[in-house]
């Protein structure tokens, strides 16, 4: 008895049309190629097999100055690589190498490259040296600005990191934007009373859910420094602040938290265009407190789950990551400061479409496109 398919199912049809398309490519001149291609594309779209705009490079309209010359600013970022020594773990080192290659392959030249902290996993000198070595492969390595993370710090209290990269807090102006980097991962001394060795201290801080450590803080002295640094900056001039921990209180158990965040926010509140960029959370994370915009950074090593409570309503969560693909949920990205001094943020997720979080979305401007929502919850 022979079986006859009266109706073609979707998969079979898409498969057949694709095969026809590729078969049609043989010995075609340009004109007929376009004809076949457009016919096939239409068929595929009709079948719902290809989403409009998938695999299209993302075009972002940037502002222009009076002469029509683009004045926006583009920052490439890499963050949270958590490197072990080379002989222990090659996966994380490879991931950072991949990010470096991706940044080198960017079409537009970045104004500078920002590293968001946690270069090392256990603050070992060898780990930091390995990180410095890999980062030196950046095409624009002279434009690298680097922030410290708690994993870089708590083995020798930042000694090695500072010898490689200098002071953990810095500031500079570029194209009319003031950039300030804070050292936000200070913790109260819990190790001396407990009599911990440097490695025990490091491992305690390295455990995200380890409650034996203390919450992060910026510190009054540094807040005074921040205030002084911004003293000559007018309220309508743009400011971008970098900090490893988010400068707000999200989830204390995992130190997605800065204990004196309100004090820092009080200093930043007067600026109409103020953005805080933070590492540490390894995920697409968006927040807005009064007029301050907050953006997280992706990790190259692994994604963190979202905090079980207290998630900012501004965050469109990234898709749940596939444990069977070690690059999923990880990536790098870029930070674009428009002529208006506001930050549009791109999360270049490896293995996924990039996610774009615009300043217009955060400012609830009319017609602003919210970040694309994945079809599955983050779980």
């Amino acid at each position: 008895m022979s079986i006859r398919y009266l109706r073609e199912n979707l998969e079979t049809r898409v498969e057949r049309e694709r095969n026809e398309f590729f078969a049609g490519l043989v010995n075609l001149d340009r004109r007929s190629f376009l004809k076949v291609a457009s016919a096939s594309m239409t068929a595929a779209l009709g079948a719902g097999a290809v989403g409009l705009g998938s695999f299209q490079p993302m075009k972002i309209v940037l502002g222009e100055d009076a002469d029509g010359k683009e004045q926006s600013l583009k920052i490439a970022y890499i963050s949270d690589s958590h490197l072990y020594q080379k002989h222990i773990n090659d996966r994380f080192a490879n991931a950072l190498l991949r990010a470096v290659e991706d940044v080198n392959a960017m079409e537009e030249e970045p104004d500078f490259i920002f590293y968001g902290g946690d270069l090392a996993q256990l603050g070992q000198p060898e780990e930091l040296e390995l990180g410095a070595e890999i980062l030196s492969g950046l095409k624009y390595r002279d434009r690298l600005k680097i922030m410290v993370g708690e994993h870089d710090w708590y083995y020798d209290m930042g000694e090695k990191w500072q010898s490689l990269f200098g002071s953990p807090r810095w500031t500079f102006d570029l194209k009319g934007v003031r950039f300030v980097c804070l050292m936000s991962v200070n913790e109260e001394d819990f190790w001396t009373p407990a009599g911990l060795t440097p490695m025990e201290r490091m491992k305690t801080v390295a455990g995200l859910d380890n409650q034996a450590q203390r919450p992060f803080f910026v510190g009054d002295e540094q807040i005074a420094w921040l205030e002084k640094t911004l003293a000559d900056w007018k309220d309508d001039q743009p400011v971008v602040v970098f900090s490893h921990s988010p400068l707000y209180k999200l989830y204390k158990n995992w130190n997605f938290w800065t204990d004196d965040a309100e004090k820092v926010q009080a200093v930043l509140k007067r600026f109409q265009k103020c953005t805080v960029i933070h590492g540490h959370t390894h995920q697409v994370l968006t927040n807005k407190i009064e007029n301050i915009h907050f953006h997280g950074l992706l990790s190259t090593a692994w994604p963190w789950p979202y905090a079980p409570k207290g998630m900012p309503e501004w965050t469109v969560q990234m898709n749940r990551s596939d444990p069977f693909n070690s690059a999923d949920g990880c990536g790098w990205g870029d930070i674009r400061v428009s002529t208006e001094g506001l930050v549009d943020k791109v999360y270049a997720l490896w293995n996924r479409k990039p996610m774009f979080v615009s300043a217009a979305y955060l400012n609830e401007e009319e017609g602003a496109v919210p970040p694309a929502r994945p079809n599955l919850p983050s779980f």
Partner: protein
Amino acid sequence: MKYSSFILAGIVIFSTVLAGSAQWRNMVPRRGNVQQTAVRTVENVQEKAAAVKQDVKSVAASVTKTAETKNKVKAAEETETEFPGTNDQWKDSLSVDWIAKEAESHKVPPHFNNRSVLRGDQHDGHAYGRYTEADLRLWESETVRLVMEGSRIFHDAELLGSTNGVSCDMCHPDGANTHPETYPKYQVQLGRAALLRDMMNWCLQNPCRAEPMSGDDPRMRAMEAYLNATSSGKPMKYGKH
């Protein structure tokens, strides 16, 4: 008479084979061979002792961490106790309160409050009327101990046998995103219906680059206990993706 010698030889061979079979030897020690049986028993004991020694070594390699525990296993090796090593961490609680120490670092939802089973003399004469405060304390302390043992292993790359420094908590702080309440489920990437422990073993072999654990490995049992404890309060939904 012609064939009797063959028959006799046949009987002799048969009985030799029978005597040589391990089953026969173990099941029916024959009369008159007391000395042989005694020798065999001694052999068996020696074999068992060697196996126990082997167990001690493998358990020591996987479970022990502190020098103190190692010493205990060494002592256990010398005395050749029946199940040495596996419970050493628990014996430690007699001298060091490691559970409190672990709980200080890693929070787990509280154990269920079973006070409702204390019903005074309402059920006099029945088992459920006889539970006391002491029973509740025992249930809780023993269960929490197993859970905290799991927490300890979950957070320690060395105990997991990880060869690249990666431990479970690095992707799953507080056991997040493990969802034990959704198993068993068809794990698309494994191509079969999986138990939580199958997924745990996948994680051990891949992100951690460790050896997989057998289902009754004390570490596996403890980690299952920990993950179930951390998902406390979530409704069981087997098969959920």
